[in-house]
């Protein structure tokens, strides 16, 4: 609503309004979005200004620790960890977003339809979702990767699909709850009374009114996706070396934790700040979108 008002007002006024809007936002939203903007800037521009290539060896004396030239130190193979973190940023972010987006798409459609249609279809869908959720997510991811076969191991597309598979059932449950709530509203009854099919009710009535819940759910899941991808990388089921994926880097350097902690600390800090930023942003977004939106449990 506030955006609609802003369009009608002169530009200088508009800037002032944006500033006012910014100040009205919850603190967590402001901090979170600042962290995210920094991450996005690094992800997009990083490859152009990172001092070394991601697999460029001989950047400095191996395991030389933190210095001005190598903020995160140099790893065993003489690669600059900072450059690797910077160049790996877009990989982590784009994989997380793509995976979450796909999971969201599937989860929202399944959940909204199942919640709206109800009856025995809903029962069956719910049991299947519960079965999927009852498997610990890492185990589920590993089963999926194992099922895909060794020839797809390290394929980024597989990783995106795995993230989607882990998230879709969880998102579907949230979407179903929202759909059950929205389906009791009178405008949905009006749509049903004029004979609309479940699919068009979902597109026109349910989805637009569930965006608040879904958006928060998206941000929340997206914040956790880098951790999931990182964990898979750490376990050796993610991307292949020398890809500068953060989880993989932590895994590679974990033996050096005592000798040269900065090589683990660097990608770890990057991952942590991204997750914290996303979570703060999510929490703020939930408050902005209205107090009625409830955050789902992990």
């Amino acid at each position, binding site marked *: *609503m506030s955006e609609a008002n802003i369009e009608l007002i002169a530009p200088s006024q508009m800037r002032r309004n944006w500033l006012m809007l910014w100040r009205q936002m919850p603190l967590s939203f402001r901090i979170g979005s600042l962290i995210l903007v920094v991450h996005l800037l690094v992800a997009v521009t990083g490859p152009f200004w990172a001092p070394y290539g991601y697999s460029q060896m001989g950047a400095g004396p191996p395991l030389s620790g933190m210095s001005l030239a190598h903020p995160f130190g140099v790893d065993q193979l003489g690669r600059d960890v900072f450059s690797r973190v910077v160049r790996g940023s877009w990989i982590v972010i784009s994989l997380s977003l793509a995976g979450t987006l796909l999971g969201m798409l599937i989860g929202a459609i399944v959940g909204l339809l199942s919640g709206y249609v109800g009856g025995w279809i809903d029962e069956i869908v719910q049991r299947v979702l519960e079965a999927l959720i009852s498997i610990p997510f890492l185990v589920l991811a590993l089963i999926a990767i194992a099922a895909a076969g060794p020839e797809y191991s390290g394929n980024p597309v597989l990783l995106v699909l795995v993230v989607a598979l882990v998230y879709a059932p969880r998102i579907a449950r949230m979407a179903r709850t929202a759909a059950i709530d929205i389906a009791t509203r009178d405008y949905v*009854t*009006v749509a049903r009374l*004029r*004979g609309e099919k479940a699919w068009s009710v979902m597109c026109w009535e349910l989805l*637009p009114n569930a965006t608040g819940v879904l958006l928060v759910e998206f941000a929340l899941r997206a914040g956790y996706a880098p951790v999931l991808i990182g964990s898979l990388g750490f376990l050796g089921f993610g991307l292949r070396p020398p890809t500068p994926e953060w989880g993989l880097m932590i895994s590679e350097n974990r033996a050096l934790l005592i000798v040269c902690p900065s090589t683990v600390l660097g990608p770890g800090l990057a991952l942590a700040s991204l997750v914290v930023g996303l979570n703060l942003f999510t929490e703020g977004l939930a408050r902005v979108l209205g107090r009625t939106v409830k955050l789902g449990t992990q």
Partner: protein
Amino acid sequence: MTMLALEVSGLSVSYRQGLGWRQVVEDVSFSVRCGEVLGLVGESGCGKSTVALQLLGFRHGGLRTDTGTIMLDGIDVLTLDRVGLDRVRGAKVSFVPQNPTTALSPGMRIGEQVDEILVAHDLPTGDRARELFGLVGLPDDAAFLRRYPHQLSGGQQQRVCIAMALACEPSFVVLDEPTTGLDVTTQEQIVDLLVDLRARLDMSMLYVTHDLGLLSQIADRIGVMYAGHMVELAPTAQLFSEPRHPYTRGLIAALPRLDEDRRTIKPLRGLLQRDSLPKGCPFAPRCDFALTRCFDEAQVLRHAGHGHQAACWRLAEMPPAAAPAAEELPAEPDHCATPPLLTVASLIVRYGHGVRAFTALGSVSLTIGKGETVALVGESGSGKSTLARAIAGMVAPTAGHIHLTEAELSPLVKARSPSQRRLIQYIFQNPDASLNPRATIGRSLSRQLDFFFPDRSANAMEQITAALAEVRLDAAYASSYPDQLSGGERQRVAIARALIAQPELLLCDEVLSALDVSVQASILQLLQRLKSELGIAMLFISHDLAVVRMLADRVYVLFRGEVMEFGPREAVFSPPFHPYTQSLLEAVPVPLKKRKPARQRTVTSVDIGTGCVYAGRCAAEIPAICGATPPPWRETQDGLAIRCHHTLEDLLKRESGLSRGGLEKS
């Protein structure tokens, strides 16, 4: 000089809005004498509840008291700190909330909830809870005290809330719409209780409500609020006979009344627009008497007679209001000649199975003629909405048939043809929930067109404009979203959405209940116009008998899913009455009608399914017959049918034995 129980002077309250503060109550002053009941009336958003909560020293981060004092027993409530407030609340001033269901803690026994207050004020508990329950007319046995709130009816829950408010014998009780969520017959009993308590305990009360008619039954004086200002303050009788402020006059003129056979009411012009209130009188933009001076000069309460004050500088120029001239009623067409549009035959709706089955509708038959308005009245739970839902195809009936003109309608909407779906349109009670908040008004309307007239969407915009014009809305509304509209406008849009389908039958499910009096009047006018101009038939569901009397051609009275009485409007609203209809009519508060105590209705257990469903609550019950055998239908020449064991002569006699005040036909 009588003692003052409470004195409020110069109270101004603001709410936080965005970055600033908005004043919602401005310079309100009034006093309540000991033992007096002051009514506070006004439309939603006029600040009446804010004032009421301030009397208890309500504080909140988003709320600020700018100026004013509230003197209660020599203490200024507004200056008290938290500890001081804890001591005053409950002991000196207490509160009865609007919704007893949410006011009582669902996980706590009601006896304990009363004790809790006593403990908080260091009073001995002992038998006090039982004593209080006896006082408010609840059973006071130990088993009842151990009940949970959900085991009580709405009326009983409100009685518990009142008992809690009285626990520490406060001198002042604030009641915030205590009967708004209750049925009219339950409301009558609660009002009786309050009148009785007041006489016995010599309490002072502030009674906040939007219902002027109700206030006339209980208040000594009435304060009328508009946009945060007190615009008139007068003794009750005087307010109704000689309202002085233009707003009060408008409110009274907009009130549908059961005691007058008026079929037209005059709604207030325009809408309360908080963003563009003038410097001067807040009512000026909507006032028929406004001059330029009104917009510039702030108004204060002026003397307008004994104990009568009004905030209008033109008081002297305006003579006391005369009764609004009765307008010519349009001749009513005869609906009986044409074949019926809709026939409902022995419809039964049952929920659940086996022993736990609940019969929502037990064999209801009903006909609606072309262009006829049929009203369904009854308490909540009488099956009114279930019937409308079954007709619309939302609920599958257990047995029975519904015919639209000649064709039988399938039980569920999915199986009906598009044209059958088009001909019956449903309008909901709550306009906030009936429009998709994420779709523009134009989209909501065009969606109907896409479905019902798929080949004519080329001139969709014209049709939308025409439909909006039909409900007196500008074409510009098509591009706005529901949250930019007021409740009345939303209800108009909901009606336009039904009209654009070119229906033959509108199912209006309590369409006026969620609206303010003046808005209600304008929607009522709209419905009357649709009826006479477009000749659309309506099934009008309402618990408000005054409104039904203004709109309906025929009336069906429902009780627990069964028709108790039906017939032409005038026949239903004049004797002989079914005992149930009579209790409904008597419960409607009519301004200035002498109140008489509600008849004692004891609910005895009746074997449901054998006799009359109303047995056990009926004041005219014949022992051993009513509960055992189903009552016969008794019909008069003018088409009235009453289902009762008493003969029509008996019912007429019963009627004449009781004085019915203003209800007699004029």
